[in-house]
């Protein structure tokens, strides 16, 4: 499978990295479908945590997404999520809100990339 042909514009996903870690790119479509399927529930979980200003729950959700992103080969995004996670643990939700919104937007961008991949796969 030619990764670059399937995903012309890669902002977050690094399929070569994925291939290096897993020695097999053919498993990526199944993994991508799981990623897309869990996102709605993850967003609800995150929304609920923000509404309740439950910083620990926001961090737990971010931590889970950080793992998913890094496993998908989006390690730069995983790193940015980790930074927000740490900032939240040290400070408060209000002060970290711009960073949090930024990573949430990027997770949305990654979702689009994954959908493009699946449409072309």
């Amino acid at each position: 499978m030619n990764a670059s042909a399937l995903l012309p514009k890669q902002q977050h996903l690094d399929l070569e990295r994925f291939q290096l870690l897993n020695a097999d790119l053919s498993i990526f479509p199944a993994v991508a479908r799981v990623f897309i399927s869990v996102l709605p529930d993850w967003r609800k979980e995150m929304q609920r945590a923000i509404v309740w200003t439950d910083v620990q729950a926001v961090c737990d959700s971010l931590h889970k997404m950080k793992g998913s992103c890094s496993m998908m080969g989006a390690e730069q995004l995983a790193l940015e999520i980790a930074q927000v996670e740490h900032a939240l643990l040290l400070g408060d939700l209000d002060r970290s809100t711009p960073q949090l919104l930024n990573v949430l937007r990027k997770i949305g961008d990654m979702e689009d990339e994954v959908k493009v991949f699946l449409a072309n796969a």
Partner: protein
Amino acid sequence: MALKVNDDLAADVCGTFYAAKVLGISVATVQGLVEKGELDAWKTKGGHRRISMASLRAYLTKHGSNDSANLLSPNLRVLVVDDDEVALEIIRSSVEKWSLPIDCTYMTSAIEAMLDIGKIKPDVLVSDLNIPKVDGFEFLRKLRSNHDFSSTAFLVITGLTEEEIAARGGVPEGTPVLHKPLDMRWIHGFMSAMIIARSLYRDLPATVRDSFAR
């Protein structure tokens, strides 16, 4: 030696000691069953008896013993616990592709795992540390101190840093910690080593195996 193990795995056979352990009888009685033709067996060039696992399973079925059936599976029993479904899917897809003799069970919560782990009796427990509702650290410590899981190998998979793990009390001594993103080639090597180790363990005399369990 490695060649012998591979041959045994491929041939689905075991030694007399393991057969005795599984059947809950003495080695002499196993030999008697072989003489009577109730178990299929043959001798290697080195004079060691090899018993067909299929005939052991058939014998157990015939005599209605279910308790030892779990021990008879030639496959490595692996339990994976992680609430990250993406990580679970990567492990699941990889295990399927590897074609190794592995029976893998996947769970997204430690509570679910705690309910069933006694039945699964995993040879290897692969667990995340940040799992919902149960402290993953406590989960591992409890299992490590439980005699029933003294021979279970633990492998931690986590997005936490070494510092974060240490700050939360660490994992049981000797537990390998693999940080996300997981290097599946490393896990493949680990599982292969565990399969070989299990096969070697299976062939040890019961007295030696018991000393490992203590």
